[in-house]
């Protein structure tokens, strides 16, 4: 193993691969940072470039694009409150408020460092425990996936700070929008109104751009004319040393980061869900386990740490089933599988024995691109912050144009641009009605997973619902879901009666 690893290190330190990894990381960061462009797009766009390269060089480039793209999304999530990709939705929850408090540099610094740590932990998991973990994940069937989806959906209650009704409503509407298109299992067309473009449903990216970016532009239009020197925010870099946070703050976040990395790896391994889900789940867990959950959403670094560690930990997690079983864990690894095929490599259990040197070159490229990501983002920190000096009325329309291009690029259709406008108006309606947007995304992502696996599971158990309870893993997750719902209702009732008692005492 050590000699193979040494070979891998030697390979990536050749001029060609080193240069490609650097280029891939920088381009990946740009793709992640621009709303509407994703790491999946970056990998897909550069796939043809790898034709002319050797297997090691080509796959190293793809890996670097993947790492840069996943991490780069934190830049726009914090500076503009617009998640660059679905993997950074939860970063906006606390990154945005930190930015408003003038602590944007700290939020960026924390995000960058914990992105790095999340990736490192996931690479370690990939190298040492990949085959064992992949075998366990492979045993998961429709029952387990349904239960996991339901468990994650029940977490919406936690995100619904303020009104539980509005939080649930947001999740239900998100789920409802996911039912547009061809239904799973029996392929019945639903709610398409004869529009063939709706057959494949709405793209997650158009939903995300609309809900967060377009609605943000409309929201800014509400009062930008009355603001003096209307810039996005101001961050002074003069007093900022290093990454902008203290050693004490770093140590205080280590457990949060480690837990989030485990969540990211676990979710990354499961085929079908990835960084888009892990960042939200990890944020919710961090909030629930925190000593000060009420501060989440107001600008605490814990939220940024949870989201950024978990989404980057998905990188190694998603590569585990790809390399060991040949199953892509998410969209990016599905495109990367194509990259392997181009070079005549078949990922799977035999890959480690037949292509040992290549596997360790990939591991070395992962480590190198993670270090490059840290360095590029650290030195880029000062440049990113300068973006804020651009006045809002100039910056936001240009971002809107980039969102339009990103939406158009999904399928070269004007239809997708109309879609982002639709979701932009819905997002703005949510803002005006005080409805939280994150549960919508959870409902939209996990809804189809729950429905598909419910129907598949019922097919397997001849229409018997008991299968979901009698399968141990599925039963355990459903029990956890029920307990979580009852616990939150109980807590909400207790808080309400305490408030009522306090009001009576004040009156008396």
């Amino acid at each position, binding site marked *: 193993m050590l000699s193979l690893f040494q070979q891998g290190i030697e390979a990536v330190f050749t001029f060609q691969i080193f240069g490609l990894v650097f280029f891939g990381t920088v381009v990946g960061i740009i793709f992640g940072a621009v709303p509407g462009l994703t790491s999946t797009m970056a990998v897909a766009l550069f796939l043809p470039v790898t034709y002319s390269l050797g297997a090691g060089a080509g796959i190293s480039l793809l890996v670097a694009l993947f790492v840069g793209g996943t991490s780069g999304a934190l830049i726009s999530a914090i500076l503009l409150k617009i998640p660059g990709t679905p993997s950074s939705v939860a970063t906006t929850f606390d990154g945005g408020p930190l930015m408003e408090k003038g602590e944007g540099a700290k939020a960026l610094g924390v995000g960058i460092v914990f992105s790095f740590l999340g990736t490192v932990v996931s690479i370690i998991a990939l190298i040492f425990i990949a085959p064992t973990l992949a075998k366990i994940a492979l045993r998961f069937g429709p029952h387990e996936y349904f239960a996991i989806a339901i468990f994650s959906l029940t977490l919406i209650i936690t995100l619904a700070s303020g009104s539980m009704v509005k939080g649930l409503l947001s999740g239900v509407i998100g789920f*409802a929008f996911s039912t547009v298109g061809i239904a799973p299992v029996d392929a019945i067309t639903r709610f398409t109104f004869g529009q063939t473009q709706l057959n494949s449903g709405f793209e997650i990216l158009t939903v995300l751009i609309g809900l967060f970016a377009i609605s943000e532009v409309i929201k800014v239009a509400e009062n930008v004319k009355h603001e003096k*020197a209307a810039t996005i925010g101001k961050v002074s870099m003069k007093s900022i040393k290093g990454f902008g946070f203290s050693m004490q703050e770093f140590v205080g976040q280590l457990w949060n980061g480690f837990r989030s990395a485990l969540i990211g790896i676990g979710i990354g391994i499961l085929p079908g869900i990835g960084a888009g889900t892990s960042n939200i789940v990890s944020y919710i867990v961090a909030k629930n386990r925190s000593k000060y959950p009420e501060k989440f959403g107001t600008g605490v670094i814990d939220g940024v740490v949870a989201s950024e560690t978990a989404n980057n930990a998905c990188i190694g997690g998603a590569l585990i089933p790809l390399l060991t079983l040949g199953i892509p864990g998410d969209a990016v690894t599905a495109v990367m599988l194509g990259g392997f095929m181009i070079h005549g490599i078949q990922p799977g259990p035999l890959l480690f024995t037949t292509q040992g040197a290549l596997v360790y070159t990939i591991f070395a490229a992962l480590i190198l691109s993670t270090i490059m990501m840290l360095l590029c983002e650290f030195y880029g920190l000062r440049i990113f912050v300068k973006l804020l000096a651009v006045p809002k009325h100039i910056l936001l329309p240009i971002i809107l*144009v980039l969102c339009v291009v990103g939406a158009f690029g999904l399928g070269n259709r004007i239809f997708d641009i109309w879609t982002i406008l639709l979701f932009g108006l819905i997002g703005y309606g949510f803002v005006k009605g005080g409805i939280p947007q994150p549960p919508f995304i959870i409902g939209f992502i996990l809804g189809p997973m729950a429905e598909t696996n419910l129907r598949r599971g019922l097919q397997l158990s001849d229409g018997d619902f008991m299968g979901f309870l009698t399968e141990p893993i599925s039963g355990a997750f459903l029990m956890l879901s029920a307990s979580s719902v009852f616990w939150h209702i109980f807590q909400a009732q207790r808080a309400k009666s305490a408030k009522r008692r306090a009001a009576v005492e004040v009156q008396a």
Partner: protein
Amino acid sequence: MGDAKKREYVLGFVILIAGIVYLVMASQLKVPERPGVHVDASFVPYVLSSIMCILGVLQLRAAKNYVPKPKAGNGDDVDYGTVGKTIGLVFGYVALMSYLGFPLMTVLYLVAQFTVLTPHDKKVNYVLYTVIAVIASTFIYLTFRYAFDMMLPVGPFDF
């Protein structure tokens, strides 16, 4: 009744109506009946629409008991005129893009949007806005067209 309370009521009614419409649409789905299959393509829409109706009722109940929080400052100073113009400009931009092409429409949209969003304490600088718009539009178009092979609509001007 205050504006905030009214808004909560309106929200409740909107949810309830949306839930009923979704329920009707779910009932109109053409799902072939299969013996022994109870969960078909209409199952989830039925469940979701029912939940939406329940949430609508709960929201109306919450609106009834809603006590608005006292606001700091001078209340709601939202500039709906600028919001309306922005939404109109974005719709116009997308609607005309197929005919006039991405490069030209982007320049027109950006200049108009910069102008609409310019704060009252700043002077509208058309020359600067046009220069920024032309540079941004050209850079974005050329990058995506030639570096990423994205076939953005060109309109009457074929580059």
